[in-house]
């Protein structure tokens, strides 16, 4: 949950979503209008810095970044593979 809350806070801070917006972990960030092509760049940079991971080009696919749950899974997998 910590990763999800951190990402949610980031999206709010960057004005990608309103603080009172209800969004489930499995809702599509794209379909909800929260993230777009510029937003994804900012999100990737944030994840790399916050979690000390490198997002490879091959990882840049909607499956990894379209929902809060997918982002959490991706970050945790990257951290596990690093350790």
């Amino acid at each position: 949950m910590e990763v999800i809350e951190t990402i949610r806070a980031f999206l709010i801070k960057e004005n990608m979503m309103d603080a009172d917006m209800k969004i489930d972990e499995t809702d599509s960030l794209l379909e909800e209008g929260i993230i777009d092509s510029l937003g994804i760049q900012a999100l990737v940079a944030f994840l790399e810095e916050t979690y000390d991971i490198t997002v490879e080009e091959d990882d840049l696919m909607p499956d990894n970044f379209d929902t809060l749950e997918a982002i959490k899974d991706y970050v945790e997998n990257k951290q596990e593979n690093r350790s």
Partner: protein
Amino acid sequence: MNAVPHLPWGAWYDEGEFRLEMPEGWNISYCAITDAPGLSETEIESALSQPIGCEPLEKLAQGKSRVAIAIEDITRPSILEGVLNAVLRRLLRAGVSKENIFFIICNGAHAPMLREDVERKLGKAIASEYWVLNHNPYDNLVDTGILLGKTPFQVNRDFYHADFKITIGSIMPHHFAGFSAGGKLVLPGLSDIATLERSHKFVMMGLRGGVNEVKNNKFRLELENVVQQVGVDFFVGVVPNAKRMPAGLFAGDLVKAHRKGVDFGREIYNTPVPRDADVLILNAYPKDSELLQADTAFTPLKSIKEPIVKKDGLIILTSCCSNGLGHHSLFGPGMRLYKPPVQRRFLKENALIFFSQNVNPAEYRKIFHESYPFKTNWGDVLNMIKSRFGEQCNVTILPHAPLQLLS
């Protein structure tokens, strides 16, 4: 008023020209593609006789009992009738019986083609003699066993079960896949809706891909890898000229033939342009049949790094939109990837006006942001230009914008 070259107008439905009136004194740059003449029947036959990276079609098709010819839909510009007839002649010569050949339209998320559109795209003879199937991304699918990320890739059942698969389509600039056609005819053209959605999300998120980038285009390389697993036995890539006729035909291996077509496309679509436009006119022909395809007219702006319009300049998007709003079962209003219109970031400080006589304001507002004026009268557009720039104005016209690669 002085006359300027006319815009090509109304592909497939209202074929003609739109006369652009401009005042004396404006500096007009009409920037057409380099272009090439259409192929003769002999030249089409010659190209098919020299396949790239595979055996001749007649040899490959021998003994086949179920031949699928998958072709692009009518939102794509190429006039294919001559090419299709040449392909059919070869299949029949190979011993495939007419009853064992069928056509399938690679609709992707576009509208199905009804009889009149089938006649336009395939020709009346084929429409009256062959089974023509529209792909439907919601049904008649088969699981390929291939995973795209987390999405199981399903493909059209009739296509999958054919024992000989041919794909035919236009090789032209594409804002994301680099150039169109090749494996793209199958993925997303013949894919299930979940795969289509995933594919379009790549575009919306701006992940990988880019216009005129093919060799290292991860989006294209991934889809080609998958389509090769499904198997395409023979690919026919057509590079359309300014009149939508095949100017080049590259047949054979799905990837090798496609790349040859891309090289040729880069030659004939190259368009030198000045860098000092006050006004840039982007005409959506030859993809001007519907409003939902109008964005393809922005392709040239993504093909060049430096700006070609001055800061605070004006961009005018023109499209016949013969079919009005059009149809897209992912991006269309109410569909799952539809989003209320926003201002286009890539326009930067430039204003945008949209001109069409076949779209109504309610439809327009579903697709373009309210800050972009919509005009149905060319005189109104001229008045807006005059009020902004007066008697001195540099105007650049790109008459075939979806095809044009700027230099």
